[in-house]
């Protein structure tokens, strides 16, 4: 479904990723862990198509198509979703209006009819129950004045609404209390299916207690230096990253 091979990327002429190889098959959950500055968020932003991230070498293949030249919205319409580490607050843009616009853009790309306002509200409110999100947040400006937990729930709500084929969660667990972490994880687990894949970027094993990964990769200095299963995450939590250098 998704693969990167020999991926080299830079930001402001500084090389960040130095030859990454990942192959994600349908239905799989891959966790990417690693110390600060190792390139985890760069990888996530590069796949989503953010400006300022330069692909120096290699390819990003999604469902057999090289997406490295596509605009962010084209990637999203193909079914790639990035849950942001720091969701942007946009004052004046109504959350519901935004969700409906995003939903209908993606539906049209999938060849489905757009939903009118009433149907869209019903659909979105149904998904909100899964992340236990307060309904009044729909009528507020997008992420403006939201708490850290509310922002992360809103990210997962967007994922539930857009139903992507590949979801990349960039440190979604940061800033969440224990209950919120479970709620967000439940939302992700609800989405798991044989034809949907996840890449979970995280510092901590605690998120992976709720969302069991099939593979765990350790990213350091722009390279994947170790891959394994859930046991690897447990070992990292216990022993840190130091033993990998030995």
């Amino acid at each position, binding site marked *: 479904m998704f693969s990167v091979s020999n991926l080299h990327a830079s930001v402001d002429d500084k090389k960040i990723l130095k030859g990454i190889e990942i192959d994600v098959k349908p239905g799989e959950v891959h966790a990417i862990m690693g110390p600060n500055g190792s390139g985890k968020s760069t990888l996530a932003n590069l796949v*989503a*198509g*953010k*400006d300022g991230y330069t692909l120096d070498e290699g390819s990003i293949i999604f469902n057999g198509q090289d997406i490295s030249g596509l*605009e*962010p*919205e084209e*990637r*999203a*319409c193909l079914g790639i*979703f*990035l849950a*942001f580490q720091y*969701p*942007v607050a*946009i*004052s*004046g*843009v109504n959350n519901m*209006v*935004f969700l409906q*616009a*995003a939903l209908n*853009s*993606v539906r049209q*790309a999938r060849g489905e009819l757009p939903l009118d306002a009433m149907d869209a509200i019903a659909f979105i409110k149904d998904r909100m129950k899964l992340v236990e999100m307060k309904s009044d947040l729909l009528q507020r*400006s997008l992420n403006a004045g939201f708490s850290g937990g509310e922002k992360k729930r809103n990210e997962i709500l*967007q994922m539930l609404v*857009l139903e992507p084929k590949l979801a990349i969660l960039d440190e979604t667990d940061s800033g969440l209390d224990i209950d919120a972490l479970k709620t967000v994880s439940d939302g992700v687990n609800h989405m798991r299916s044989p034809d949907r894949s996840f890449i979970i970027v995280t510092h901590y094993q605690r998120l992976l207690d709720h969302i069991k990964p099939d593979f765990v990769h350790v990213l350091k200095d722009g390279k994947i230096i170790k891959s394994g299963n859930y046991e690897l995450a447990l070992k990292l939590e216990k022993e840190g990253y130091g033993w990998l250098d030995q």
Partner: protein
Amino acid sequence: MTHSIIKQCLQKDYAGNHLDGLKSLWQDVTWPSSKQEIWRYAKLHWLNEPWELVAQKETQQAYDVYLTQYDLLSNETDLVSMQGKFLPNKVDEIACFSHGHLDMKKVTWSDDFFNQLGWLGLSDWANIEVAEGKYLDQQLHCILDEEKKWQNVKLTIHVKKNAHLRLRINTISAQAVTNLSINVQVETGGSCQIISWASPQSKLLMDHNIDLKDRAEFRYDALNFEAAWCHERIYMMVGSHASAHLAGLLLPSSGQSDHKAIHAHHIAPAGQSMQKFYSVANGNGLAAFHGRAIVGHEAPKTDARQLARALMLSKACEVYSRPELEIDIDDVQCQHGSSIGELDTKALFYLRSRGIDLNQAKAMLIEGFIEEIVSDLDQSVQSWIRSRIAKHEIGKV
């Protein structure tokens, strides 16, 4: 007064070194250049076309056409100034209303021709007086057809003790210059709310004098963003415990300019004033905000605030922002803020990463920026203003 604002707009320190650009905006205006020409101009355009010859029925039809064009309803109209003459459509018994032509003979030549134009001659005028303790909700349309060059409208508004007025002024003048002067006096405990809108490609000279007595409330929303050019000056005196809220949208795109010059003078204790103006400029559009709040030594406990924010959507557009505070006393709360920038690239990426295309994402961010002003407007005009903003297409390249 009008003359002074033109001069102010042309001053180098106000509009930078863009004098030529500003002058070019005025090329299509026929300005009298001598005393003889002024009289000839006046005679041709005002005296030789007596309004009595225009049938009331035709006038009604004409303004119905204009109003329909801009989604305005004639049955909501209270006053009409059609081609320079007031026609009372519905006179509420609560209001004391008078109207008519000012005497041409009062006009005498001086260097300050435009001042006299607005205050003494060549004007049609109306007085609106709201009786003590009463409430009046009026809608005024100032319409000028394409054959006219000028429309001079003078409104004198007197809101008496504990009375309330809500006035909506729509200026419709596609090819003509409208010179609108409003004098407002709000007595103790009274309130006055004015919403001003102008039709696309209007040309506006506006000059307002506001006098707020003790505990008076005043709100003015300047929404003349569709005008080809608008030069607006507001001079306001804020009395004891009075409050004033001045807000507006400046959305100039190619060929458009919008200037606001505001002077809020606090002359008594515990007054409040807010100046909140948002601009979005595109093409070679020009937006200029020059707001001043003066807090005299006789005005302790004053709360004066100014906020000017602007988005620049193109390299050729120009935005000038000058919020100024002049404070002569310590015991006050005053704030002023100004920001000018481009669309937030992080926000753009966020929207696009959800499948929303670049143009729609830009439009959403612009609408979101503007919404901070629109959502604060009187509920009755919000959706209509949103539709006008959508038609204005400020984000369109």
